[in-house]
């Protein structure tokens, strides 16, 4: 009995393993020859396919609703905007419009619409399509969801002829060559009933006039586009562009190593370091478009004058704010927290936007100087008590609540440094890390907070969020303000830049605004994090970065990267031999397993009678 049973156990396990193994090998064996995963950037029928790993889910494929980067990036590829940004220096260049001109009173803009752009269904793209798109956004609340702010100052939009678009404004607006609004084909979109619920993701291909045409989409699986051979600027060099979903960063990197994807963005320092040693992978450590700052609560208030929140009173003293930032070692933040993948912070707008980049002169610059910070605090009247703690006006030791994003490891790391640096000044720091910081943030219930924004080629938006007009109307409402800054001098400069149509003069005013923001000390930029990304050089021979000299590839303000990407030829030719080896191996494995299976089956039959 014992021997028989022992045998039975082993037999069952072996059979199970064999069955599982056979199933696995069979699946692998059958599927591998069919596996279209591009070891080279090439599909079965010889088409060149560029596969890009993405993680963010598409919120909507309707340009009237989409807000996320992945969706707006796809829209850039599907539809032409009136203008685009030059990959070299971000200045406005022709898109659907070839020229644009303001009237003498600055209130009317006339755009010349190109006559060589066709919708993918063969119809001509005209000024009428553009006028219809803007008018729809101005009259239909559902259609204004994503880009309503772009048309908020529009009085009237008309198309006197197929090549002429006229936009009349309520008041002057300098950002008229930076309207990031996809122009859609009227003859397709006028059939849509409810713009607030139409997601543009049911029928393919989607009619467009951009460098690529959307041909298929499956939520959280892929977005497929094929090249638009009749694109006015010239067809893209890859035949197909696929955004493939990888929800885990390490899995995406594995896919890049294998060659299943050609491009991965958002790398961690560790991933970048590991990929750098690979011959067939290029790591692009590009200057980013974000700034990473320490925002100070200036006392939350509404436009109606009502104050709310509970920011620390000492922070209203400019010397205190200056002292705190003097004790922040930006070099250490860049070297230790970002592990070198960032640039030390100076002005509000990152250096990649060269036209608007400003940095403080030597006399103005707040350099790292802990001793000076201590002196400044003494001068401001916040002296140390017997325990070495600085005390506030109420006689109690100062401890600042610093709001941090629990999902952001950088916030936590910098927070630890702040505890050390400010601790030496005699100031306590209590880190308040949350998954969702918006509740205390909007209620003004914090002292300082980690803050960061992505900056557009036209800086109007990131400037506007510090104006008094952006404050909430009443404490119960939500404003567009970032951290409740409201400064008359800044506001006056803001209005001036918005009405200044001379690019150089406007840039000069913007720099004055940055200088003012720096001096007031409510928004202290610590670093500009880099965009760290990587691509396979055996799949992509060349690709345009933005800015061209040293810039990023994913999430550009334009379609330059994917439109310009050129496939590498002959890359990965050894993979053919490798795959043959794999197939031989699998066939051998299947034969052996089939033999084993047959052996056990025969044995089982032979002993069946005995067992029953």
């Amino acid at each position, binding site marked *: 009995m014992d021997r028989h049973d*022992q045998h039975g156990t082993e037999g*069952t396990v072996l059979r*199970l393993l064999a069955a599982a193994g056979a199933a696995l090998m069979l699946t692998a064996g059958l599927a591998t020859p069919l596996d279209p995963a591009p070891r080279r950037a090439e599909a079965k029928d010889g088409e060149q396919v560029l596969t890009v790993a993405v993680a963010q889910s598409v919120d909507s494929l309707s340009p009237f609703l989409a*807000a996320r980067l992945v969706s707006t990036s796809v829209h850039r590829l599907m539809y032409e905007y009136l203008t685009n940004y030059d990959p070299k220096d971000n200045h406005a260049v022709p898109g659907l419009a070839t020229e644009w001109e303001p009237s003498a009173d600055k209130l009317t803009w006339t755009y010349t619409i190109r006559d060589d752009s066709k919708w993918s269904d063969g119809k001509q793209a005209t000024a009428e399509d553009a006028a219809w798109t803007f008018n729809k956004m101005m009259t239909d609340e559902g259609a204004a969801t994503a880009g309503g*702010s772009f048309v908020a100052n529009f009085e009237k939009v008309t198309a006197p002829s197929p090549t002429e678009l006229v936009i009349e404004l309520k008041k002057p607006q300098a950002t008229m060559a930076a309207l990031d609004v996809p122009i859609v084909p009227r003859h397709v979109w006028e059939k849509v009933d409810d713009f607030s619920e139409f997601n543009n993701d049911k029928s393919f291909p989607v009619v467009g006039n951009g460098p690529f045409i959307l041909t298929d989409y499956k939520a959280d699986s892929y977005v497929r586009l094929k090249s638009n051979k009749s694109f006015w600027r010239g067809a893209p060099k890859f035949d197909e562009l696929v955004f493939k*979903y990888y929800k885990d960063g390490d899995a995406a990197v594995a*896919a890049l190593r294998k060659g*299943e994807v050609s491009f991965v963005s958002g790398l961690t320092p560790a991933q970048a370091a590991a990929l750098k040693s690979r011959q067939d992978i290029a790591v692009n450590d590009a200057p980013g478009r974000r700034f990473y700052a320490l925002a100070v609560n200036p006392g939350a208030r509404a436009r109606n004058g009502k104050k709310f929140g509970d920011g620390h009173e000492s922070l209203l003293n400019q010397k205190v704010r200056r002292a705190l930032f003097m004790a922040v070692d930006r070099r250490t933040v860049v070297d230790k927290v970002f592990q070198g993948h960032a640039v030390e912070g100076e002005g509000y707008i990152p250096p990649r936007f060269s036209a608007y980049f400003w940095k403080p002169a030597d006399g103005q610059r707040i350099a790292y100087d802990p001793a000076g910070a201590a002196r400044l605090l003494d001068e401001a009247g916040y002296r140390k008590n017997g325990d070495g703690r600085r005390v506030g006006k109420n006689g109690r030791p100062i401890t600042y609540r610093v709001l941090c994003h629990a999902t952001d490891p950088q916030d936590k790391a910098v927070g630890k440094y702040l505890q050390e640096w400010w601790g030496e000044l005699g100031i306590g720091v209590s880190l308040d890390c949350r998954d969702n910081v918006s509740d205390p943030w909007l209620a003004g219930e914090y002292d300082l907070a980690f803050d960061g924004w992505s900056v557009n080629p036209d800086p109007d938006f990131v400037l506007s969020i510090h104006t008094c007009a952006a404050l909430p109307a009443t404490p119960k*409402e939500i404003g567009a303000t970032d951290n409740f800054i409201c400064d008359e001098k800044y506001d006056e400069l803001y209005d001036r830049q918005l009405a200044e149509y001379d690019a150089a003069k406007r840039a000069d005013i913007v720099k004055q605004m940055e200088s003012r923001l720096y001096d007031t000390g409510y928004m202290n930029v610590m670093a500009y994090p880099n965009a760290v990304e990587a691509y396979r050089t055996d799949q992509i021979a060349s690709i345009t970065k933005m800015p061209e000299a040293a810039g990023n590839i994913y999430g550009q303000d334009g379609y330059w990267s994917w439109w310009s990407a050129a496939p590498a030829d002959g890359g990965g030719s050894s993979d053919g031999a490798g795959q043959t080896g794999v197939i031989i191996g699998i066939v051998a494995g299947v034969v052996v397993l089939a033999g084993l299976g047959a052996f056990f089956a025969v044995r089982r039959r032979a002993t069946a009678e005995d067992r029953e």
Partner: protein
Amino acid sequence: MTADATPSPVGRTGGPRVRGTAYPGYVAGKLGGAAVSLLAVLVTSFFLFRLIPGDPVKFMTGGRQVSAGQLASYRREFGLDLPLWEQFTDYCGKALTGDLGTSYQFRAPVMDKITEALPNTLLLTGTSFVLYTVIGVLLGTRAAWRNGGLGDRLHTGLALTLYSIPSFWLGLLLIIVFSVGIGPVPGLFPTGGMESGGEEGFAYVLDVAHHLVLPVVTLVAVEYGQTLLITRSALLDEMGGDYLTTARAKGLRDDLVRRRHAVPNALLPTMTLVFINLGRTVAGVILVETVFSWPGLGGLFYQALSVPDLPLVQGLFFVFATAVIVMNTLADLIYPLLDPRVGR
């Protein structure tokens, strides 16, 4: 099925009671309980998620240009400007007609989002469920029967080890070894996703099967241990039973004693676990879905929570809870059929 060997204290009355008057009452009780639970879930899901800190409108518009008027129109559109009780009655009324509302972030009916991801999740968790249950029960039975033997120690040890491994770690390891390939091991499987896209018919089935292998292996590896251990301990409890000695004394082969007498009696705890697991299959497996980029309900739930996308969170919670309640009720209804002592 065990009547001949099980000296039941109630003699022959067990069977008739199930088919007689007691069972319908038992069934009614269980179904009533399930209905009350469902109602409680409906109410809880509404209020529970309103406790999540964060303003959905601000989260969704974060980092964008939005005017105060636009923010107000968002609130109006989502019904967030209405008093809570009005939002609640609205939600209940719609839920009863199968309308779970519209997702804030995806601007699509919650029902559509769920039915889109549900089959993906069921394919992954269902396949894994069948495999780890079968493997767990078979190995658990063998291990208990040969209690203390080499096979028992080996299986129990391995199962415990795998059971304690974090699934995302094992998943990543499998990706590195079997997707990318290491040394002589070639990259056999895709690194992620459910399909390559562009395939149709049988090629599509094969493509999905190909993508399914590694996530299923991961899930089976970390999950089968639980079934194995429960089956093993339940069977060990039965092994001292006199009826087994009787069965052996009748001259039955050891294999038959185990399969026909011991195992059926030891099945109850395993069945409980099976139904609990079955209820859980719907909720998806966030970590494995993330590592393998599987477009299922687990990932959707995570995205819904981070906004918070209230209609989507509520809808998913309701569906998850319903699955568990239905499966538990089903288990309750099946117990008396498996073991007449239950439900008396």
